[in-house]
């Protein structure tokens, strides 16, 4: 699918990324996928730059909780419909006070992705006035659930009781096998 000119274009983009933006590092995942790690202050300029270069489709905006490093990694996945190349642009924000800036002026859909990330990780996006409205969850009363320190099983046990079976299934199985005599209920 990729023509040779596009290949050159890709290399140009990668090298100009390094020249234009200080502190940006790139990593090759495979020939059509690159990861770009940006310092927070450079993220939005990089995204704008890439959009201009044809990486105009925002596939997803999401977040990763690196609890040991006390960081949230915000991930923007950009796709180029012309070349089929994906850029995974990421940046780290402080986990204790997670605030970043909205990109909804670049991609309107980001408004909902940001609401999603806020709901599940608690990252605030400045400039997105709706970002703190609940979206998927309703009347949520605990930690943002996709944070690593949230334990869903514990929450489930506390709020939604399990069934406590009374039946001695092994005894029933032994009757079925003919190991012991007895009657099966049902």
């Amino acid at each position, binding site marked *: 699918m990729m023509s040779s000119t596009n290949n050159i274009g890709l290399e140009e983009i990668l090298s100009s990324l390094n020249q234009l933006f200080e502190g940006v590092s790139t990593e090759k995942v495979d020939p059509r996928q690159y990861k770009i790690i940006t310092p927070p202050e450079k993220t939005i300029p990089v995204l704008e730059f890439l959009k201009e270069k044809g990486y105009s489709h925002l596939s997803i905006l999401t977040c990763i909780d690196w609890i040991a490093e006390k960081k949230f990694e915000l991930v923007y996945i950009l*796709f180029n419909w012309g070349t089929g190349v994906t850029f995974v642009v990421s940046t780290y924000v402080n986990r204790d006070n997670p605030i970043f800036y909205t990109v909804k002026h670049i991609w309107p859909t980001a408004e909902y992705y940001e609401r999603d990330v806020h709901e599940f990780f608690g990252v605030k996006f400045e400039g997105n006035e709706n970002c703190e409205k609940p979206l998927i969850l309703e009347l949520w009363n605990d930690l943002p659930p996709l944070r690593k320190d949230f334990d869903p099983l514990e929450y489930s046990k506390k709020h939604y009781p399990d069934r406590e079976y009374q039946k001695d299934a092994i005894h029933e199985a032994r009757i079925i096998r003919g190991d012991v005599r007895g009657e099966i209920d049902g």
Partner: protein
Amino acid sequence: MGEVKLFFGPNHPGMHGNFSVHMYVEGDIVVKARPMPGFLHRGFEKLMERRLWYQNVALIPRICVPEPDINEACYAMAIEKIARVEVPERAQWIRMIVLELARIANHLWSFGGIGGPTGMYTSMYWAVADRDRVLDIFEELSGARIYHMYIVPGGVRKDLPPKLEDKIYHLLDYLEAKIPEYETFILKNRILHTRLKGIAKIDTETCLKIGVTGIGLRATGVPYDIRKVDPYLFYDKVEFEVPTATEGDAYARISLKPKEIIQSIRIIRQCLEKMPSGPVNVKIGEGSGLRIRVPRGMAYVHVESTRGEYGYLVVSDGGEKPYRVAVRGASYPQGLYGVEHLLPGTRIDDVPIWLDSMGVCAPEIDR
């Protein structure tokens, strides 16, 4: 005339799936609309972090109920990308067959689904019954009708059962004969024309701006298909066309579905011919299924689902469980942003048509 607040769904005859749109209407025109997702939220992304790499195979098909295989494919391919595992050729071809069969099944499903809001029930009765024939193939192949759990990291779970190829050929022949009937009998039908033409019209610019992919985009004349643009599996080794339409309305979107089915049939035939014999899976790492570990890394994999770009971002910290999995539901942009900004102006009775033809699929938005 005053504004009336209306809860459209989740329990509504026009709503497919457990989704809701809250809106203000004036007369029968929608003036404000807000999507209300989350009724099908199960917290997949969290649950996946709690399960072993292999155990997740049982969990993920449920993210998109009508087309589960794309989840398995994305997940498996992302892991293979991180672990740098080469999947045997036969497995790749089988995966393509599975994905295309799923595409056929889901196109038939949504083709049937449009019967509800338009009142054209024939399409529902025909298409859903024909979809069942595809499900019969899936049952033979994977042991279940709906949740196949067949594509696993490293390949597929089992080889094709004996004689299944003949049955697939038989099904393709049947569908090939059936699709023209759909076109003459349903697509050319007056009811469908009246109810779909010019309804829910969207232009290319809007689609690209908000990130609508798949049929929604292709119905505006842009031949963007991930299978062509960023080929995965062996889509670059088969011949097929990307059907497009130019009108960008509901009718254009619906009429593309039979055309895509024809292309899928073409692809499956090529797969069946080109498929070599050989192994169907390799191990990811060493050891038992309980102790699969994926090296540290991150990869994004997307496929072309019936509704557009469907993607998985898989992050591994080198452990026995995924560190983070993020799912990009194909209908996320149109289901949320699209509903809020594009729905106003539509008539109430066209809202289900809008949602259906744009392929708004609640489970993949909610996850």
